[in-house]
């Protein structure tokens, strides 16, 4: 109370800063941007469902507002172009074939044999070769919330990549620790849909990680249903029900992570969804789902502007050389031909 009086006193004696009223000192959320790393680790036609899983999550996070430039999508096989796919260039996550999750604007960052443990760790820790383009990098900072979704075939303490190698839970935990030490995240939500999925997050030791897995150690995660038209299972149970939940989330939604953890009870999943919250500092009941699955930005209204003097063209031209090709300010724009490529002599 006394502090409030002091504050009002001090604002009243302001001479310059009186223009802006005492604004709130904090933003609504503690992160400024959202990233997503979505990984499908298995290949071959019979693992169609894993590709469908990851593409469905991709579609959801994109719908909820994370732009493609902030999504790293790793898909180990190209189901859409598989010769066994009766409907080429499509991937469906449902036998009803309502939504083609391999839609018009899917930007796969790492595909096929590029999806390796090494590349995945490189993306997380940022140890990529200098020639790697921006879109393939996780350029997060200490104010970024990151969603990490993984699917594939796993066992107790590992997730198989490409049938040739595997990432162990220790390696993953160490990678997250490296990210923490280099301040590459603010909070991580780790979601994994694989057999014995819980084992993957048991070794985590870095702060601010919230994790959910489709099954406990010793349990299998099962697929949801088969599409008789293509003869393979099209989606996993946990992801199916998670998507059902996410479909009802709108960008401004107030649904919480706690509600999300209740998705897919044992009766639906036939495996026990397991959650780890001890590393996470906030209460999942108060953490809204769009903190990870969307991108709700902080905003600040501009109450003041800079006062500039009109700087005429002559003034700036006298010091430096004038901009030569100024577009005409109004009226008809002159048309010109596009410049040709230089021809070899």
């Amino acid at each position, binding site marked *: 109370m006394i502090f409030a009086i002091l*504050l009002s006193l*001090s*604002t009243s004696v302001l*001479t*310059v*800063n009186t223009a*802006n009223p005492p*604004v709130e*000192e*904090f*933003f*609504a959320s*503690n992160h*400024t941007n959202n990233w997503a790393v979505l990984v499908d680790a298995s290949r071959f036609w019979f693992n169609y469902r894993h590709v469908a899983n990851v593409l469905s999550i991709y579609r959801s996070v994109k719908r909820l*507002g994370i*732009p*493609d*430039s902030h999504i790293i999508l790793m898909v180990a096989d190209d189901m859409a172009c598989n010769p066994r796919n009766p409907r080429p260039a499509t991937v469906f996550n449902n036998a009803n074939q309502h939504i083609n999750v391999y839609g018009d604007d899917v930007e796969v960052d790492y595909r096929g044999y590029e999806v390796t*443990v*090494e590349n995945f760790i490189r993306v997380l820790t940022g*140890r*990529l*070769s200098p020639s790697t*383009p*921006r879109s393939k*990098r996780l350029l997060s*900072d*200490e*104010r970024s919330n990151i969603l990490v979704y993984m699917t594939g075939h796993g066992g107790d303490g590992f997730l198989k990549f490409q049938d040739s190698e595997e990432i162990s839970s220790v390696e993953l935990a160490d990678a997250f620790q*490296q990210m923490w*030490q*280099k*301040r590459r995240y603010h909070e991580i939500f780790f979601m994994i849909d694989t057999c014995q999925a819980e084992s993957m997050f048991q070794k985590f030791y870095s702060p601010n990680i919230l994790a959910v897995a489709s099954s406990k150690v010793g349990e299998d995660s099962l697929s949801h249903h088969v599409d008789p038209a293509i003869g393979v299972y099209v989606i996993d149970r946990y992801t199916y029900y998670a998507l059902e939940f996410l479909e009802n989330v709108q960008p*401004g939604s107030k649904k919480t992570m706690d509600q999300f953890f209740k998705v897919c009870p044992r009766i639906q999943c036939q495996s026990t969804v397991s959650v780890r919250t001890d590393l996470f500092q906030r209460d999942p009941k108060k953490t809204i789902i769009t903190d990870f699955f*969307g991108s*709700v*930005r*902080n*905003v*600040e*209204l*501009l*109450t*003041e*502007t*800079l*006062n*500039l*003097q009109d*700087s005429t*063209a002559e003034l*700036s031209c006298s010091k*430096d050389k004038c*901009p030569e090709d*100024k577009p*005409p*300010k*109004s*009226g008809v*724009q002159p048309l010109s031909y596009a410049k040709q490529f230089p021809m070899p002599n």
Partner: protein
Amino acid sequence: MVLLAEEDKTLHVYAAVGIGVVCLVIGVPLWWKTTDVYRVSLPYSDIDQLAQYKIQYGVDVTVISFDEQMVDADLAALSKHLMDSLDRNPTPGDISSRYRTNVKEKTTQESSLLSSSTSVSDLDAKLNEVYKQDHNHYYVILLPQTSQLKVKAPVIGLNRNIFFTKEEKDIKQLADQIGQTLKEVVVRERSVLKAYEAAKGSRDQKPDKERMRTVRSHPGYDITFTLVNSQPDIIDAQWDIQHAVHAYLEPLTKRLKKYAAINVQSQVLYFTQMMTKPKTDKEKNEHYYTTKELPLIINPIEANLGSPASNNPELNFLVYVPTRDEHPLHIRDDTGMNLASNAFLSPRWGGIYICNIPSPPQNASLPVRPSIDMKKVMEIFLFQLRLLFNLLYQGSTSVDLIPVGNTVVAEWELDGWLRSHCVENLATATATLQSLAQLLGQISNIVINDDIGQEVQSAVQSIKESYQLLKEGFLEKAFLASREAIISSEKAFFDPSLLELLYFPEDQKFAIYIPLFLPISFPVFSSLFKAFKWFRETKGLTKAKQE
């Protein structure tokens, strides 16, 4: 016959010993050497030491009194009180400030400057010219009450001059006022501390707006100006961005050129609309967004912005021209009033300005091509840029700042920027090196190239240099050294070669070597053992014979 067998056995034994010696003396070291992981020795102890360092930054202050009423005793008292005031309430933690003060009376040259100046800002410019004021050296000017330039509250000029007028007789009060203004506004100790803590990674307290908004220190930034023409078939707005950048942004980029590479780009997006429908106010016949919708309108547009090729932090500034149906479009604050600027900012991202252009009249030939007032646009964006770069002082200390106007950044603001970025760079680089050292110490399988060794060495060197320079008050040099440090340390930390041999765990080494070495080592060792036994036996025999 017995003798021959004996000779044969001797030969066998020597052969076995020979092979054993070759295996042990040449083979094992050779194997050890060739399979060794190449590791350059790193200055681990130096890195550990860096963490113990306490950052100290020096600031020079010269007080020049134009007040004739102040006698030498007053000046001495002022000097003493000012020192007390500046050393009081040191910022908590590992970081501290060190002020060097000098109080003196005006010279005749200076008093002629005062009498020839028409305004405070005029005097500010003249003093800057005379003293060739350098970074980190501030001049506190005490104006006499009799002067026509006397100021009510402290005034900070565009250069490094702070103007006071002594109102009361009490010198201690004046000293306190000077001390507080220097610490809070000019040097911005609190901002420096915040930058340091953010880089150090202490996240125990909720970050305030300043900390969230300020773009992290980086050797380069990409600034993109985008004009979003939502309905170019009706209103095809034109902007002279090239001229605007030349005229208004360049004073800032030129000043920062030495410290950060700033790339400026511009683009025009057509047929891109806000995905969130604005609310409609039927009474006033206008459309509006509230603070609830604003967070959601950035993302759909951002998806169309494209991204630059570099890995620098991006800052986006958008001018949005609403469609005919949405026009006029306003932003309303929490009290329901239309925002005068019609613009908002997203921390570490940039800003959006909604530019309402009147709809064309019924009989106009479409599209109309109105041009946008770039001065207004730049007034908004430059203010936002000052916020994002944390150049603007937003505190509660009562001071008058001479408006920066077209210079965009005042010299003392630039000093503040250098100071907090230098401290941030130092903290980040130290933390990076520590993390790297810890990682390399933990995992013995990681190859450390000569390149990495060199980068680490130079980073350590630059950090030490920067610490020293900062302490002595050479702000610019300290910043440049800290920038070198951060570039080197990041290069070492993110070097792709660090991951190359990581996927070769210890247990797999045994799996590879045992099938190779076991079949060889078994006969070698058993024959060596036999030879050893034979030597002992023959020794025993000869001894027995001698006896």
